[in-house]
């Protein structure tokens, strides 16, 4: 009996340390992202650990629940962000289960954005939430990409996808459209991205306008974990075991990906909501045509 409990405690510590690792790496990468954008724009920029410093600073700030908020949804949404991404981290990175579950969890991130915006009752948050619903078009290519991957590998379990790549080489050369769709998703998740209509500065801070103090800190934590998980997923699904089986190489791959995305984010302007949605629908159409072509030939 005692051994089981000790084992359980060991597993819990294991899980928490995984989460902490993901948070630290994701936070550093996001700080790096900010630094590169600053350098490209000719500014010195904040130090790389700025993201982590922000998180700890907000963690020690008091909050006050707005009079218009709908509780407990208002607080629960911030917690849900971390829940979603920790679950994605464990199911994807640790247990390597189905890709479909991870896509489902990514979709829940939309619920978090929408819920944060709506539950506060603030018009700015509301606009951020409604824009988040609009940009749900970014997920549709993802589903098509999942279909394409399934047709190629006959499996959606990440473990199987990795072992497929061990035999046949990286998927990115075989399915460029699916990889492109996934890459667009990464870009739209990055801060200051051309698709970042949700956190547009013209609507104050978008959906996190009302989530300040410790709640903002929670959202920052979840964003850092999300960045780690999404980068890992891209590398695991499209580039494969050469990079993913060695933690150090994985880290280097993440840094390179972040670097590419930062350059894209720094050099492109923010699109207006309708242009952003139109572009995403265009990519969707492209990927769906690819899916139909692939499934018709098989």
């Amino acid at each position, binding site marked *: 009996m005692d051994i089981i409990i000790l084992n359980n405690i060991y597993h*819990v510590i294991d899980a928490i340390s995984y989460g902490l690792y993901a948070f630290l790496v994701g936070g550093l990468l996001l700080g790096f992202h900010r630094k590169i954008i600053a350098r490209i724009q000719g500014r010195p920029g904040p130090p790389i650990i700025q993201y982590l410093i922000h998180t700890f600073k907000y963690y020690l700030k008091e909050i006050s629940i*707005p009079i218009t908020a709908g509780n407990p949804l208002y607080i629960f949404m911030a917690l849900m962000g971390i829940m979603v991404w920790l679950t994605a981290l*464990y199911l994807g990175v640790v*247990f390597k289960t189905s890709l479909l579950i991870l896509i489902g969890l990514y979709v829940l991130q939309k619920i978090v954005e929408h819920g944060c915006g709506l539950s506060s009752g603030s018009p700015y948050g509301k606009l951020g939430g409604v824009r988040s619903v609009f940009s749900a078009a970014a997920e549709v290519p993802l589903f098509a990409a999942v279909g394409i991957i399934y047709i190629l590998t006959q499996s959606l379990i990440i473990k199987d996808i990795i072992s497929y790549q061990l035999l046949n080489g990286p998927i990115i050369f075989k399915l460029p459209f699916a990889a492109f769709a996934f890459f667009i998703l990464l870009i739209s998740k990055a801060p200051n991205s051309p698709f970042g209509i949700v956190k547009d500065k013209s609507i104050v801070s978008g959906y996190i306008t009302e989530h300040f103090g410790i709640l903002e800190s929670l959202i920052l934590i979840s964003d850092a974990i999300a960045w780690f998980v999404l980068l890992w997923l891209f590398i695991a699904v499209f580039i494969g075991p050469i990079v993913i089986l060695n933690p150090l190489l994985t880290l280097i791959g993440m840094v390179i990906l972040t670097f590419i995305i930062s350059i894209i984010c720094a050099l492109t302007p923010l699109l207006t909501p309708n242009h952003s949605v139109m572009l995403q629908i265009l990519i969707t159409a492209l990927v769906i045509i690819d899916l139909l072509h692939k499934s018709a030939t098989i």
Partner: protein
Amino acid sequence: MTPEKKSGIISLIIGIIGFACIIFYSNNVLLIYLGTALFTPFMIYGIGMMVNPKTKRSEEGRIPFRGW
């Protein structure tokens, strides 16, 4: 007690109960990991509310939202 403090205490209680459940009554590794994912945020929020400084505002409690 302000509603903020109250929410912190409630989430701390939920977190502690949840962690006790997964440590004492679970024998599946996947379940332990998912339980950790579910209850860690409650713990983080609860502890954060406990270490929050005392407010310096004269009227403690609810205010209209920040964008106003």
